[in-house]
Each structure stands twice: as structure tokens, then as C-alpha cells.
């Protein structure tokens, strides 16, 4: 067994690292690295797109499938919760290892693309739901804000407070630009409904009855009925907590590499 040096590495490890560093000046090595980087991007993005699709479907599926599920209280809480717990551990790993603030943007963009694919093939082509009823929400801008907060501050703590907070708080505003038309009122059979409610009634879902939706169920009813801003503030706080918590999970998972070294 080699002796450990003052820097905590063995002599062989120190030599290996010096060789790695010198390889960065070697064009042939760099060409090889670029090919490996391409494979890493392919594998990582494939893993992320599958992972986030499954995770988001299981935890926030119906909120993203149907326009008549996206209420002012639950959807702005459920969606960032679900996304941040997936984003945070990967962000920690990639930031710790290579200092690239891209994971939140990558995950939200990939989720958006795969959601559109799913809505078009599964919902529109296969089961005949109109896209106007089943289009996905977007979280890409929130991912960019989270990544940029990290890139600008270079601090996971600052990015948690600013990025995590904005990620939670801005779910409703970022989607309102194209969601507002679906909240226009309609009179139907003597009752007041939004366009989204009416679509949920008319486009039949046999196993998704009306009562399954969680609409306005909470105790956030103070502050003069300002539901949307109040939920945004609460979602922002939740975003900070969830992001911090799962960054910690990421740091814990990241520390498991010591076991892989021993195995090798």
C-alpha cells in the first residue's frame, strides 16, 4: 500500500493528477475529452429526461395534464416542490464536480419538450383530447433564474434563497401569459364556470371525476382574499426549503463516491 503524502493523496494519485492536468494542453487528449463530453451530455440528458418525466408524472401529473386542475393554491405549490426535489441533488453534483450551472434549465427544458411529445402522441393523437385542454405548463424560465442565480452568486446558499424562492414564487406568473384565456368566465346551464372548467366538463374523462380536483382547498384565506400573491410567497418559502433540503441530499449522495473508490 502506498504511503499517503501531506496533501492526503498517495504518490501514484499525485502523479496521476499531474498527468491529467498536463493532458489539457494535449490536442489529442482534448479531442478525446470532447467526444467523452458528448457521450456524457447524451447519457446525462437521456437520464434526466426519463427521470424527470416519471417523477413529475407521479407527483404532479394531473396538475400538468389538464388546464382545469391548475388552480391558484395547490398547483403553484405542488409543481415547484416536485421539480426542485429532482433538480437540487443533480445541481449539487454537477456544481461540485465541474462548476456548471445548467441543471435546472436542462431539466425544465427537457421536461417541456418531452411533455409536448407526450401530449401530442398520447393525449391528442391516441385519446383525442384537444391540445387546448392538455398543453403542459412551462417552468423553463424558472430553471434559468435558478441557474443564473448560482452562476452570478457562485454560492449554493445564495442561489437557494434567490433562485429557490423565485422558482416557487413565479410558477403562476410565468404561466399566466398563456393560461389567462382559460380563466375567462362562461355561463353554462345557469352556473358560472371558467373556460377551463367547461372544457373539463365537456371533454369526458371517465376516471377523472370533478371531485378529484383539489381546487382552492387550503387555509390561505386571509389578507383580503389575495390568494395568488399569498400562495406565491408561500410557494417561494417552500421552494427555498425544498431546494435546500434536497441540495443536502445531493451532498450526501455526492459523498458516497468514497465507497466507489474502495470498490475499484
Amino acid at each position, binding site marked *: 500500500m502506498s504511503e499517503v503524502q501531506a496533501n492526503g493523496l498517495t504518490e501514484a494519485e499525485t502523479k496521476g493528477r499531474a498527468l491529467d492536468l498536463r493532458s489539457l494542453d494535449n490536442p489529442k487528449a482534448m479531442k478525446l475529452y470532447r467526444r467523452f463530453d458528448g457521450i456524457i*451530455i447524451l447519457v446525462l440528458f437521456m437520464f434526466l429526461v426519463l427521470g424527470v418525466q416519471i417523477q413529475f408524472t407521479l407527483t404532479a401529473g394531473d396538475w400538468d395534464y389538464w388546464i382545469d386542475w391548475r388552480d391558484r393554491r395547490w398547483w403553484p405549490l405542488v409543481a415547484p416542490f416536485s421539480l426542485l426535489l429532482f433538480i437540487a441533488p443533480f445541481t449539487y453534483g454537477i456544481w461540485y*464536480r465541474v462548476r456548471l450551472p445548467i441543471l435546472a434549465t436542462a431539466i425544465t427544458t427537457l421536461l417541456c419538450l418531452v411533455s409536448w411529445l407526450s401530449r401530442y402522441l398520447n393525449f391528442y393523437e391516441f385519446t383525442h383530447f384537444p391540445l387546448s385542454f392538455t398543453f403542459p405548463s412551462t417552468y423553463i424560465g424558472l430553471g434559468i433564474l435558478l441557474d443564473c442565480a448560482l452562476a*452570478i452568486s457562485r454560492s449554493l446558499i445564495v442561489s437557494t434563497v434567490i433562485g429557490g424562492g423565485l422558482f416557487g414564487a413565479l410558477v403562476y406568473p410565468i404561466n399566466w401569459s398563456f393560461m389567462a384565456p*382559460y*380563466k375567462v368566465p362562461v355561463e353554462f346551464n345557469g352556473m358560472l364556470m371558467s*373556460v377551463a372548467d367547461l372544457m373539463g366538463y365537456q371533454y369526458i*374523462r371517465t376516471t377523472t*371525476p*370533478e371531485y378529484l380536483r383539489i381546487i382552492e382547498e387550503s387555509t390561505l384565506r386571509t389578507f383580503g382574499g389575495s390568494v395568488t400573491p399569498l400562495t406565491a410567497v408561500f410557494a417561494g418559502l417552500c421552494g427555498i426549503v425544498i431546494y435546500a433540503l434536497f441540495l443536502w441530499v445531493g451532498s450526501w449522495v455526492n459523498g458516497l463516491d468514497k465507497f466507489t473508490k474502495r470498490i475499484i
Partner: protein
Amino acid sequence: MNRLIAGKTQLRTLLVGLALVLLAGDALAHGERAQLASMRMRTVHWFDTKVEPQNVKVGDIVTVTGKLVTSVWWPKHMPSIAETVYLNIGVPGPTFLRLHSEVNGVPMMRSTAFPLGKVYEYKTVLRARIAGRYHVHPILNVKDAGSLVDKGTWLEVAENDSAAPFVNEVTTLPGDTINLETYGLKGVFTWHLIWIAMGIAYLLYWLIRKELFIPRFIRVRELGQDRANELMTKKDFVVSSLFFTGTLALILGGYFWAEHKYPITIPLQTGLVDVEPIDIPTGGLVVDVDHATYDLAGRSLSMQFTMTNNSDSPLRIAEFLTANIRFLNPEINEGEIYEGEEMVSKDGLTASVDIIQPGQTVEVELVASDALWEQYRMTGLIHDPDSRFAGMIFYYDENGERFFQEVGGAVLPNFF
């Protein structure tokens, strides 16, 4: 040699699997036989279901009407329909548009509650949207209990003569007439494209660079965590700041633009509606269940009753209904069989007493016997956690007026 044999076996397995997939037929039912026999017998008794017309074109109207009685023998281990229920329709997705639905005259866009032991008359108006052949069922979604399905009726929907796309127009309260098939999609597509372009631009900035994952990993390892931030350049800072500011501006700009364009919006609407139930028209017949036996080999349910006719008209028992199966008394031709109706045993009911005279109290045995018990998996009755049965008897007075009531009680199996 062994590998060759194993390879051939795998190939055969694959081919058989593929053949099974290719030869598999369509799934055309909605699990009518899948639910526990007790659930079908003791939850909701559907009757008089009519689906009209049964041959339509895309755009045509189809009306589904019928009645149901909520069972007082509702299983105690199952969440009750008296809490929350939604009148639904079992069709393959939005192949139809639901234009209207009501129970006892009350519109049913929202959920409601059905107290037990009452009659509810429902109506659902559909508009055919996608051509095809569909098995249409009325359905009640009961909160925490699942779906309770009436029997289905086959419906043929042909393409209409026009090549124009299907249109579903409504007028909003602000006065705009909109087509829900495509409403709002222009904005959805535009904003999604903007955000996807933003996301890809941001990713490309970070991913198209000379040193990416492996070189940066080497440098971070060399610098250590304390100095690793030196990898972030001034250009990275400036570009990230621009993206941050631009994104924030776009989010807020989009929000206020939408607020300006759609000044009148409301939150999603929800809540329960109340329905006034109808009492069961018993016609003055008092029925006590004395005993019931289910004969497995004979596929028959034998029920002994004591019946007292308190009306001033003689009564004749015409039908026993349970789990959506109708057992008709062939001696009385009063019970109508609707066009396309399934699960009817035309001579499945025998009654030991033909006429119950006014003021008379008699012992009556009803035997509901047919292979439908087996076909619809009702023999599972003997495996239920509380062996009870329930059903409806229908009877007529001398003027042909129909009365009905629910009967139920303990049932004993006869295995031999």
C-alpha cells in the same frame, strides 16, 4: 449447441409474443364483470337506461337517460355514495362532448351526494366527436370507492359528410365566441416556443465551450473547492446576469400583458350541488325477506318473502333486477326491453304467487335463474366479506302502472 438451442427458444418466444400482440383484439368493455359481486348488487341499481339514437354521425346528438336507486344495503366497508358522487359517462375518452347532464332536473357539472334508498332520474346529452363504435355506459364516480358502472349500449358513430374540422363553440361572459377545440393555442405555442428557445440558448452558451465536463472536472479537482469558482469567468457572469434580467422581465412582462388582455378572469369553480331525491314508489306493497339461498350448481337465487298488499289494486311481480341483470317473469309481459339492451334474462324469473290481491298477505318465493349469474361472475357472491344480497323487484297493478322497491338480506350458498 446449447447456445443454438437457447437462441432458437428465445426466437420462438419472441415470435409468439409478437403474434399475441398483433392478434390481440380491442379492449371494448369497461370492467362490468370485474367488480365484486356484492359491489354490483348492493350499491346502485340502474334501470330504464336508454341510449338514443344508436347510429349517428359526428356532430349528432345522443341522449342517455335512465333511473337509479341507491341501495340501503350499501356495504359498510365501502365509502358511501351519500358523501360525494359525480355523474359521469363511460366512453373511450372525449369521443363525445358532454353538452348537458342532470339528475332529478338539477344540472350536474359538479359533484353531489345521493342519500341511500332513493330514486334518481338522470339524463346526459352528448355530441358525437370522433367516429367509431363505442360501448357507452352511465357511470357514477363515488369518492374513495371508485366507479360504479351501468351496463353498456353499443353506439355507431359515422363520419359526417363535411370535411370541415370539428368545432365546439361557446360564448364567454365578456361576449366572445370561441372554439374550445383550438382556443388559446396560439398563445400557448408562442410562449412555449419563446421559453424553449431561451432554455436552449442558455444551455448552448454553457455547453459549447472548449473545456466542458472532463477538463473542468480535472481543473476543479486541481483547484480544490475553495478556488474552483475561478473557473467561472467574467463573461459567464455578464451572460448569466443578462439571462437573469431578461427572464425576469419576460415573466413579469408576460404576466402584465395577459392581465391587460384578459382583464376579466375568475378562479376555477368547484363545490357540491344539492339534488332533491325522489321517494321509491312502492305502491303499498310491504315486503319482508324471510330467507335467500344461492344455488351454485343451478345458477339461481331463490328468495322467500312475506308480502302484504296494502293497495287497492292487485299486484303482479314482473321483474327482479340485481347487478344490472334483469330477470323477467315470462308470465307478465310488462317489462320493456330496450333496443340494444344487454344482460336481460327474458324468462329468468319465476314467482310462486301470480297475483297478490289487495289486503292479502302471502308467502312468495322468487327464483332468479340464468347462466348470466355465471357469465357475469356473480358466483363470487359467496366470497364476499358479508354474505348479503340486494336487488329490485318491479311489479304492476291492474292498470299497468309500475311500482318497485329494493329487497335484500342475508344469503346462504348451496354448494351441492
